[in-house]
């Protein structure tokens, strides 16, 4: 495609042919106000907020739907354009309930922002406002139809991206209303995105409803741990609690959306039931112990086994829920002890879900690719769990140390591993159930939202993850546990590795001999 040269507000802009004026302006940092336009959706240009002046055209043109042309001269700040913005804002606010105080969107509301720019402090509207109902449009979404500005982003999303089309517009004119058929609520796995793209507070997440005013949220950039796609996300938390998760735009990973599974994945690790003290399996079953004891016990047991049966009788199991760095530290630590056999817990597998504009991976852990590749790189080989079980049965493996970190309900599959044959088995994990683990030592690890590190998604994209909060109780980040263990074992951990982890951002870190970014 050839480039087009045009002038926007006296600035020369060169963009590919077919670009809209709005996007061209955006590319040079000129923000044209808009409601209905969304970069991930079609542009019906119905909000009439993005009108700009184009030289030679007597009417203002909608910048979101007008393609650039060579030599076009666009002005976004003329009195006429501002008058148009002001006028449109007055129309918007005439029937808007103006209930910002109780609206969850307040603070991140486009309508609110624009009314600072082009709104008026007083209203000429003295008529009766059209009132519309509050509608339950789905299990997690509620529609305050009163606040709706009819930008139809939600309708278009459900038609164009999820392809499910649950929402539509009913009635005409000022009585137009977003509507859902009673027997077809918005239940598709991408539904949460319509809350994100709603420019006002019309569509609200029931989960987040009334929880917190947005200006008190702290946002942390991270990646979604729910599946191997590892969508880029923004975790919004307040007072150490995750309150909501929103997608971050990342063309290489998830585009602009995330699925609801990922959106609410934090519940999988949050709340009661998290393991928060080290547990040691003794004569009286599992008992609490402190960290020094736990680490000392692990070090002592591992050294004993290694001395008695040789270093290769110690095996390790990496985790797809742990970061690349944690897996690498695990592998290096045990390779330095003489271990040769390593394995990786498989991520729970489901069938992938495909939508017209999005795909959810079937591998339900974020770092499957990263963990596998890291362990292979360090250990040279990676046994399947079945192979490891064979080795245990044959008595060639006497001690196993494992990373865990799986979410609630997806405990690591260690039932068939023959753990009872082992002399020592320790695992760092987040949950223990009665069915659980025949481990000698269970160390409370961190959930993906409590970690710092790097993950590699199924497409080979490396992403940095950041800690939103501290692990609960005495639980520690898995990296810290491994470092403590390394210290207790007097093992030398590669300085490069620690430095690499400490020097953010990790995504730029060339962590192995074969790291090459996108595969």
């Amino acid at each position, binding site marked *: 495609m050839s480039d087009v040269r045009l002038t926007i507000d006296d600035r020369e802009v060169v963009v590919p042919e077919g670009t809209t004026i709005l996007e061209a302006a955006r590319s040079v940092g000129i923000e044209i106000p808009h409601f209905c336009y969304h970069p991930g959706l079609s542009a019906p240009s119905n909000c009439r907020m993005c009108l700009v002046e184009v030289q030679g055209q007597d009417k203002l043109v909608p910048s979101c739907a007008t393609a650039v042309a060579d030599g076009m001269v666009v002005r976004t700040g003329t009195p006429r354009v501002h008058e148009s913005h002001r006028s449109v804002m007055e129309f918007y606010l005439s029937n808007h309930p103006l*209930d*910002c*105080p*109780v609206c969850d969107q307040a603070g991140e509301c486009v309508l609110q922002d624009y009314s600072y720019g082009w709104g008026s402090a007083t209203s000429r509207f003295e008529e009766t406002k059209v009132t519309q109902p*509050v509608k339950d449009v789905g299990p997690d979404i509620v529609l*305050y139809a009163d606040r709706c500005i009819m930008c139809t982003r939600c309708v278009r999303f459900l038609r164009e991206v999820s392809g499910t089309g649950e929402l539509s517009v009913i009635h005409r004119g000022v009585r137009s209303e977003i509507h859902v058929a009673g027997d077809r609520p918005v239940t598709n796995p991408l539904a949460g995105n319509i809350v994100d793209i709603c420019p006002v507070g019309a569509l609200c997440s029931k989960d987040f*409803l*009334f*929880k917190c*005013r947005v*200006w008190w949220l702290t946002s942390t950039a991270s990646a979604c741990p729910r599946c191997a796609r590892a969508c880029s996300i923004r975790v919004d938390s307040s007072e150490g609690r995750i309150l909501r998760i929103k997608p971050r735009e990342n063309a290489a990973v998830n585009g602009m959306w995330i699925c609801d599974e990922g959106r609410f994945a934090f519940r999988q690790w949050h709340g009661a039931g998290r393991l928060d003290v080290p547990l040691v399996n003794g004569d009286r079953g599992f008992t609490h112990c402190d960290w020094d004891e736990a680490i000392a016990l692990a070090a002592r047991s591992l050294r004993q086994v290694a001395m008695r049966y040789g270093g290769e009788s110690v095996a390790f199991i990496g985790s797809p829920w742990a970061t690349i760095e944690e897996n690498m530290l695990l592998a290096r630590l045990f390779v330095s002890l003489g271990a040769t056999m390593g394995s990786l817990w498989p991520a729970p597998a489901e069938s992938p879900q495909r939508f017209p504009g999005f795909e959810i991976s079937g591998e339900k852990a974020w770092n499957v690719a990263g963990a596998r590749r890291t362990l292979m790189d360090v250990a040279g080989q990676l046994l399947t769990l079945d192979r490891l079980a064979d080795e245990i049965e044959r008595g060639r493996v006497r001690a196993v140390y494992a990373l865990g970190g799986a979410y609630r309900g997806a405990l690591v599959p260690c039932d068939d591993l023959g753990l009872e044959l082992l002399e020592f088995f320790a695992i760092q994990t987040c949950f223990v159930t009665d069915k659980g683990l025949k481990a000698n030592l269970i160390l409370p690890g961190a959930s993906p939202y409590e970690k710092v590190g790097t993950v590699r998604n199924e497409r080979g994209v490396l992403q940095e993850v950041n800690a939103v909060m501290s692990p609960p109780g005495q639980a520690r980040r898995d990296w810290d546990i491994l470092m403590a263990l390394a210290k207790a074992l007097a093992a030398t951990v590669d300085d490069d590795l620690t430095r690499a982890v400490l020097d953010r951002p990790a995504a730029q870190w060339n962590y192995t001999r074969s790291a090459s970014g996108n595969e």
Partner: protein
Amino acid sequence: MTHLPGPIFNAPGRATADRGLPTPAYDTPRPGPQKEKRLSARPTFFQRLIVPGLLRTWWSGVRHIWQKKLTVQWPEQVREVSDNYRGVHRLNKDDRGRMKCVACFLCQTACPANCIRIEAGPSPWPDRPKYAVRFTIDELRCVFCGMCEEACPEDAIELTRIYSLVGTRRDEMLFDKEQLLTMYDLTRDEKHPLRW
């Protein structure tokens, strides 16, 4: 008013008088003949003696022993506070006796002392989506600045003229929703003419 010479000495109330503002009461010159006083850079011999000066200073303090006292002997005497005095908070009720607050958190946001804590929830009434399930003000932390009142879009929170706020434990001073609504019942008929 006599203008004292020299740049150091400024006649009391002069700055405000020059700006055309009313002279504050405390700056009003005492009635009586105003003698022009001159202060030269060099102290006179009399001043150098110090002792008479000391005695005069001492007397100026001692004199007050039998002068009128300003202390208000609470609780026997009750001080009349002005109409826009900012005392304990109250949560207003509407004409149907329901809490006016819609849990918009603006008071909490505006509060410079971080003494307001609200928990919102779906309202049991159809005319509003949201209301405060819990509403707590730490009266010990409060600086009684009145910003909450200013911020409130519903006129739901107000400061009353009640200033005798005592308790024997810290948690007594954490006023919850019920207490704050009770404050409204106690002060229902009060008017705050200067604030709105």
